[in-house]
C-alpha cells in the first residue's frame, strides 16, 4: 500500500467529508433551485410562458427593470466617488466612513423599508406636506427606488475601495504631473485599472436590486400591475395559489441568479488580480 503524505487525509475521511459537502450543497442549495424550475414547468412550457405574458406579470418585469436601471447606476457612481475619496486621499475618520458605507448590509431589509415609511409615509416627517402637494413616494415608484438604493448601497463601493487602495496613487500622480486634468486621469488611468472590479460590483448590485423583496415589500403597497416588482408579484401569485405563475416568474429570477453566478465566476477566474476582492461579499 502506498504511504500517504502526512498532510493528506485518510481516504475514508476524505470520502466522508466529500459526501457531507456534496450532499449539503445538493440537498440544500441545488434541490430548491430544481424545485423552482420543475414547479414552473409542472403544467408544461406553454403554461409557464403564458403566465409570463399576463399583463400584471409584464408590468412587474418592467418595473423591476426600471428600478434596477435607476438604482444600479446611482450606486455605481457613488461607489466610484467614495473609493476615489478613500483610496486617493488621507483624511481623518476614513475607517469610520468605510464602516458607515457598509452599514446597510447589516440592517434587516424590513427595517430598510421602514425608515423611508417613517419619513415619507402618511404619518411620517413629510407625510402631510407630500399629500398636500400630491406627491406619492411611499406605495409608488420613488419609494421602491429609495428602498432598493438603500439595500444595494455598499455593493460597488466595497468592491472598489480595497481594490483602489491596493493599486495606490503612483499612476494617477504621474498622469497629473504630466499635465492630465482630473477627469482625464480618471477616465484614462483609473477607470481602465478598475473596470473589472467595477463590473463585478455592478453585477452583484444588479442581482440584489432586481431580487430585493423585504425592503421593497414595506414601501410598495402591493398594488397589482402598478407597484409590484417581480419578487413581490411572486409573493402575490403564490399566496393566491397560482403556483405555475408564481414559479414561472420565480424561474426568470432564478435564471438571473444563475447568469449572475456564471458571470461572477468567470470574472473571478479570469481577472482575479484585477478584482482583488474575490472572497468578499
Amino acid at each position, binding site marked *: 500500500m502506498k504511504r500517504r503524505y502526512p*498532510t493528506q487525509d485518510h481516504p475514508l475521511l476524505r470520502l466522508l467529508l466529500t459526501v457531507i459537502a456534496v450532499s449539503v450543497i445538493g440537498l440544500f442549495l441545488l*434541490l430548491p433551485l430544481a*424545485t423552482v424550475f420543475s414547479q414552473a414547468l409542472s403544467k408544461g412550457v406553454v403554461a409557464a410562458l403564458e403566465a409570463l405574458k399576463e399583463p400584471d406579470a409584464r408590468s412587474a418585469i418592467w418595473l423591476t427593470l426600471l428600478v434596477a436601471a435607476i438604482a444600479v447606476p446611482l450606486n455605481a457612481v457613488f461607489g466610484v466617488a467614495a473609493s476615489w475619496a478613500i483610496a486617493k486621499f488621507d*483624511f481623518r475618520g476614513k475607517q469610520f466612513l468605510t*464602516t458607515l458605507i457598509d452599514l446597510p448590509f447589516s440592517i434587516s431589509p424590513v427595517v430598510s423599508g421602514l425608515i423611508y*415609511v417613517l419619513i415619507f409615509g402618511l404619518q411620517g416627517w413629510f407625510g402631510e406636506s407630500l399629500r398636500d402637494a400630491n406627491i406619492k413616494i411611499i406605495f409608488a415608484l420613488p419609494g421602491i427606488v429609495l428602498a432598493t438604493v438603500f439595500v444595494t448601497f455598499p455593493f460597488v463601493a466595497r468592491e472598489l475601495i480595497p481594490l483602489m487602495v491596493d493599486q495606490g496613487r503612483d499612476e494617477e500622480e504621474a498622469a497629473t504631473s504630466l499635465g492630465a486634468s482630473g477627469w482625464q486621469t480618471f477616465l484614462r488611468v483609473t477607470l481602465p485599472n478598475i473596470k473589472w472590479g467595477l463590473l463585478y460590483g455592478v453585477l452583484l448590485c444588479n442581482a440584489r436590486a432586481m431580487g430585493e423583496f423585504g425592503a421593497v415589500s414595506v414601501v410598495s403597497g402591493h398594488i397589482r400591475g402598478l407597484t409590484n416588482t417581480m*419578487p413581490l408579484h411572486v409573493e402575490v401569485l403564490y399566496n393566491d395559489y397560482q403556483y405555475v405563475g408564481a414559479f414561472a416568474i420565480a424561474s426568470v429570477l432564478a435564471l438571473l441568479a444563475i447568469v449572475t*453566478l456564471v458571470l461572477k465566476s468567470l470574472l473571478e477566474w479570469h481577472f482575479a488580480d484585477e478584482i482583488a476582492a474575490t472572497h468578499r461579499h
Partner: protein
Amino acid sequence: MNVAVSRWRNPSALPGFGLSLGFTLFYLSVIVLIPIAALIIRPWSAGFSGFWHVLSDHRVLAALRLSFGGAAIAALINAITGPIIAWVLVRYSFPGKRILDALIDLPFALPTAVAGIALSTLYSTNGWLGEPLSHLGIRVAYNPLGVVLALTFIGLPFVVRTIQPVLTDLSREPEEAAATLGASRFQTLTRVVLPSLMPALLTGATLAFARAVGEYGSVIFIAGNIPAVSEIAPLLIIIKLEQYDYAGASAIGVLMLGASFVLIFALNLLQNWIGERR
C-alpha cells in the same frame, strides 16, 4: 485656510477630493444616515415606558426569541457544515468541484422570495423532502424548524466564503511538523488546523447570524407565520405598519437596528483580533 485643512487631511497631488468626498457624504447622509436617524428618534413619543410596553408584549417577545434564537441555531449549524465544505473545496480535487464552488453563492444571488417559495414547496408535507420527512414524524414547514432551515440556507455562504481564503493561504508546514512529531491526523486537524481557522470561523458565523436575524423573504413562506409560534420579528414590523402602528413598528425596528450595531462592533473587534494575531 490650508493650514486648517491639513490638520485633518494630508496634502495630495491629486484633484477631486472635495467633489468626491462631498458627494460621498451627501449621498450617504440622504440615503442612509438621515433615514436611520428618523427611525432612532421615532419610538420615544411615549417615553421609554412606551418603548418597553411594545417590546414586552407576549407576541413581540416570542417573535424576537424566534428571530434571534433561530439565527443562533442556524449560525451554529453553518459553523459545523461550513468548515467541512470549505475544507473539501480547498484541499480535495474531484470532478465538478468548480460548479459546486460557484453554487455556494446561490443564497446570495437567488432572490429571497424565490428561495422562500422553493423551500416552502420542497418541505411542505407533499414536497420532495417534506413527504419522506413527514413519514418520520418531522414537520418542517409551518413550524419553527422551517424558520431555522431557511435561516441556515441564507447563512451558509457567509461561513464558507470567510473560511475558504484563510484555508487557501494556510501554510502546510505546521501540519507536517505535527505529523512528524507523532500527532495523528485527527489530532493535527483539531489541534493545529482548527485553531488557525477559529477567527475566520467566528467572523463567518457572526456574519451569518447578523444576516439571519433580520432575514424576511426566505423565511415567511415556510414559517406559516403563526402568532407567537412561528412569527419572526421583521414580519411583526410589517404587521404593525399595516395596522398604522408606527410607534410599535419603529420600537421593534430600533431594537433590531441596535442588534445590527452591536454585531458590527463585534465584527470590528474580531477584525482587530485577527490583525493582531498576524
